[in-house]
């Protein structure tokens, strides 16, 4: 492979990693508050549909992007009600949300398949895009990619340096102590669920507004599940999530480019790579559990209010 192809591969890596990055950050945000949400796939696909439909009806992709976030929050609110009001099983509720989301998006979105909507197109950042190699890889994308660059540091700051961030983490680590300290754990968990859903919705919208400008009911194609696995790989840290998302984006982009460059490896093997990597990632991260930032009360419901 020549240098040019490698640079093109890395640029494609960033782009195909971006929807996974949004979703992974969303799931980290939710899990930090102590709630496990396995509904990422369903929330993403609803976000993708909402973004597409709003962009199509209003002609404004930015509006579509935010609508996707809102719909993501609304969808996860169902999960919030089950887990926080009724103390339902978080795993079951999350799985139900995935099934509901994919089914609902399929039902509502049928008429939009194969239609065109306005979306985001690449925009080279002045000055930064002129940097050799780095500029080509990171700064010649659509605006949503640049938005995704900002979220991990902001999220890190939020968790490490703000009162709300510490409160949210306390709700996930030791809700009883947090309650004793006078924190409203239920409110923090609501924030975690709905805030995380917002990012998941954005991840879906990235697929229908920037990655492609099309809608179909299978648009997310399992990316939500990869995001769930990546949270474990990232040790619940926003910074490592970037690394993980790009690793997956890279392998997805790589397998197609290997085919394009005329490899003799069967395409069936190459198409398996992202999923093989998922398994490897989960095995490896479970070996190094001690260094992980996993919230101690993840998946444990808090007692209902009197």
């Amino acid at each position: 492979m020549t240098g040019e192809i490698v640079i093109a591969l890395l640029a494609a890596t960033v782009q195909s990693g971006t929807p996974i990055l949004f979703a992974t950050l969303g799931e980290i945000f939710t899990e930090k508050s102590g709630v496990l949400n396995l509904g990422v796939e369903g929330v993403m696909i609803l976000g993708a549909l909402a973004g597409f439909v709003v962009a199509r009806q209003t002609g404004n992709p930015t509006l579509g992007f935010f609508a996707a976030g809102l719909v993501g929050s609304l969808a996860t609110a169902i999960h919030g009600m089950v887990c926080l009001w009724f103390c339902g099983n978080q795993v079951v509720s999350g799985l139900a949300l995935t099934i509901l989301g994919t089914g609902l998006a399929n039902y509502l979105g049928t008429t939009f398949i194969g239609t065109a909507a306005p979306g985001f197109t690449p925009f080279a950042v002045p000055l930064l895009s002129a940097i050799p190699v780095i500029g080509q890889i990171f700064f010649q994308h659509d605006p949503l990619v640049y938005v995704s660059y900002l979220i991990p540091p902001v999220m890190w700051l939020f968790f490490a340096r703000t009162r709300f961030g510490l409160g949210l983490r306390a709700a996930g680590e030791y809700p009883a102590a947090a309650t004793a300290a006078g924190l409203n754990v239920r409110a923090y968990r609501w924030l975690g669920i709905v805030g995380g859903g917002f990012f998941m919705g954005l991840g879906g919208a990235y697929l229908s507004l920037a990655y492609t400008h099309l809608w179909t009911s299978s648009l997310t194609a399992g990316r939500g599940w990869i995001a769930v696995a990546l949270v474990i790989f990232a040790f619940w840290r926003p910074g490592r999530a970037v690394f993980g998302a790009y690793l997956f984006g890279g392998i997805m982009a790589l397998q197609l480019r290997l085919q394009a460059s005329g490899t003799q490896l069967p395409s069936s093997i190459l198409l398996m790579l992202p999923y093989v990597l998922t398994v490897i990632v989960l095995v490896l991260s479970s070996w190094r559990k001690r260094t992980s930032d996993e919230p101690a009360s993840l998946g444990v419901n808090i007692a209902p209010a009197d």
Partner: protein
Amino acid sequence: MRVTKVLLALLLTLWVGSAVAAEKEMKVGFIYVSPVGDAGYSYSHDVGRQAVAKMPGVTTSYVEAVPEGPDSERVMQNMARKDFDIIFATSFGYMDSMVKVAKQFPKTVFLHCSGFKMAENMGNYFGRIYQARYLSGIVAGAMTKSNTIGYVAAFPIPEVIRGINAFTLGVRSVNPKATVRVVWTKTWYDPATEKEAGKSLLDVGADVIAQHQDSPGPQEAAEEKGVYSVGYNTDMAKFAPKAHLTAPVWNWGVYYTKVVDAVRKGTWKPEAAWPGMVDGIVDLAPFGPMVPKELQDKVNAEKAKIIAGQQKIFVGPIKDQSGAVKVAAGVLMTDPELLGFTWFVEGVIGNTQ
């Protein structure tokens, strides 16, 4: 005298009227594997359905996004129970379900698209889309400057391989130096993956992107990069107005109306129909404005030859990827050979696994 005339006229009207009334309303059902949308494979079938719906005395209905397997069986049974006269199932995976249902409802005529099984009341059909692919290959071969053409392909099955081979033969008929690079996505309709596959081909130097996919994803990739593309199924120009050179397109209505007519007249017999350009079932979408007039004329001349039966495309000598002669000079490949294609012709880069 006058009275007799009036009486005669009256009688005639009555007779014609009763004849029309005796001819009962035909019910024709269609089953699609994906939602109709407004582009792509199921859409092309639905355009055909609309042609049937315009026939006098025929009503049509369709069920879209029917998964292959047991679900499709239920949909077919439902239609047959509601006294549909003809049922068209338009995807390969409906084949075995249709064979089963055809046995249960011997009075209904069943037609299955792209398969190979038949029964007393069931036939199958497909079109020689490869003829249009050959023509689109000529356009791509003439328009490429890098001599690398990308082809985003769905699954390595004979139908797709045959299309890639016909396309490549078209490319090399005008540009023997050009190669066609194939990327498999293993999807029929996944815009994100299919667009990424298109981009991966652009990265290795392709400047024309062709596709055997139902989504316009690869078209978008070409449009954004400012290079050319060849669509599929229906005219995809609206998704890539600056890139879209042309597209092999389906025109199912020609066949569907013929079948409905034959069933109504009672002349229908189960057969494996494989009509081609001469019947009008496959065609080339209108050329984009960037295709020069001389090239358009050349392609149209070639098209006339196909219609006249002088250009059969898969005529030897045809070499495989290793350069070995697979079809001897002057030998025409048979239909069973075409339907069982598992190897690439010379000029294709990629493998059939």
